[in-house]
């Protein structure tokens, strides 16, 4: 059984300079209240690994606006001009990674693989400086695993042991990120008693989840 944390309590756990895996795709499925609590607290220097930085004033975009992010590893920043501005000004380091490669690198970090062998990025700037590996006459880029100090996970609901359910396009990076961090904090909309979520509906087993945020409603 886990105790339901206030967003501020959860934010307190995260030290300056931490490497954060943050779920969500343009804010959909992101841990909204945790992000707000981090902005409220104002401690930063984070490395943020996520699909994107949303938009200014929205979700991960709020962390960018508040200048709490020193580096981000993302697939897309096209809809956040503030991220681009800080990048061009040299205030924010941005590593752009193809979306499929990003999710596989995080998965590799979570399931203990040594890396990812992929054709995506071959012959492009993504391949620069990276080793290639030949398998049966075909060449693949070797992309390294990614892990975080914390994974901040948005979920539809959970039970008291932390079993998580996601919905529709709010799954995205969340289930994979929940495997790839030393400490996993889940932010569910709802919390249910143990036994209310059928085993077949669980997408992230509670044993992976260290902390649960209080319910939204």
């Amino acid at each position: 059984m886990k105790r339901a944390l206030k967003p501020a309590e959860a934010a307190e756990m995260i030290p300056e300079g931490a490497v954060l895996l943050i779920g969500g795709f343009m804010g959909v499925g992101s841990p909204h209240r945790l992000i707000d609590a981090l902005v409220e607290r104002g401690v930063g220097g984070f490395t943020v690994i996520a699909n994107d930085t949303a938009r200014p004033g929205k979700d991960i975009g709020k962390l960018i606006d508040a200048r709490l992010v020193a580096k981000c590893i993302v697939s897309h920043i096209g809809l956040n001009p503030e991220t681009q501005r800080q990048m061009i000004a040299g205030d924010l380091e941005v590593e752009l990674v193809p979306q499929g490669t990003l999710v596989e690198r995080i998965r590799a970090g979570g399931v203990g693989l040594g890396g990812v062998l992929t054709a995506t990025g071959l012959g492009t700037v993504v391949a620069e400086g990276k080793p290639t590996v030949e398998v049966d006459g075909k060449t693949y880029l070797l992309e390294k695993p990614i892990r975080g100090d914390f994974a901040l996970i948005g979920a539809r609901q959970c039970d008291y042991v932390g079993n998580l359910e996601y919905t529709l396009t709010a799954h995205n990076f969340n289930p994979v990120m929940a495997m790839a961090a030393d400490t996993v904090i889940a932010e569910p909309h709802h919390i249910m008693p143990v036994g209310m979520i059928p085993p077949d509906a669980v997408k992230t087993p509670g044993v992976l989840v260290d902390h649960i945020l209080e319910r939204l409603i």
Partner: protein
Amino acid sequence: MDAKEVIARRVAQEVREGMLVNLGIGLPSMVANFVPDDMRVFFQAENGVIGLGQRPPDGMEDRDLTDAGGGFVTAVPGAASIDSAMSFGLIRGGHLDMTVLGGLQVDEKGHLANWMVPGKMVPGMGGAMDLVTGARRVIVAMVHAAKGDPKIVPECTLPLTALRRVSLIVTEMAVIEPTDEGLVLRERGPGVAVEDIVAATAARLIVPDEVPEMVLA
């Protein structure tokens, strides 16, 4: 019929019964409007749904159901939620029958550049590199020239999206197929003469004796 509608209508003819299709943001997303209602096609949004549907009725929007551009969508009966690992597993594993993407440049080798303009626009590649590398058919849907500058060029000067040769280029002026021999002009746009196409194209075009006009029923 404006240029974009010509392109979207023509690309829609490439869609076949039973296909799994990914449409990029913007112009490519218009293709769905011109696929026959009774054709069973599944549209994938790479952020997490197979069976993307139309816009929801006003007031019925679900913040957890959007397309890859963050716009509200619906899902059709028989839809499936997928996380990013499954989504890109489908794309990279060859399960996606077709992707339609915008383009900045395509060259004589059929190489596509569509994700950045150095020094001007660095949106990130999002899923584009994975889509172009992994989809069974890659269709580039774009206007033929950008403010008079040809977009179909001898060799891309912008950073490539992938080394993979795209399957087809559809513009309002022409349908062009990259082949081992080079770019073959397959069809003319409505009322467009072959000479106009050649004049608006910087790349060398292979022009067959017969170049039929697009049939946009």
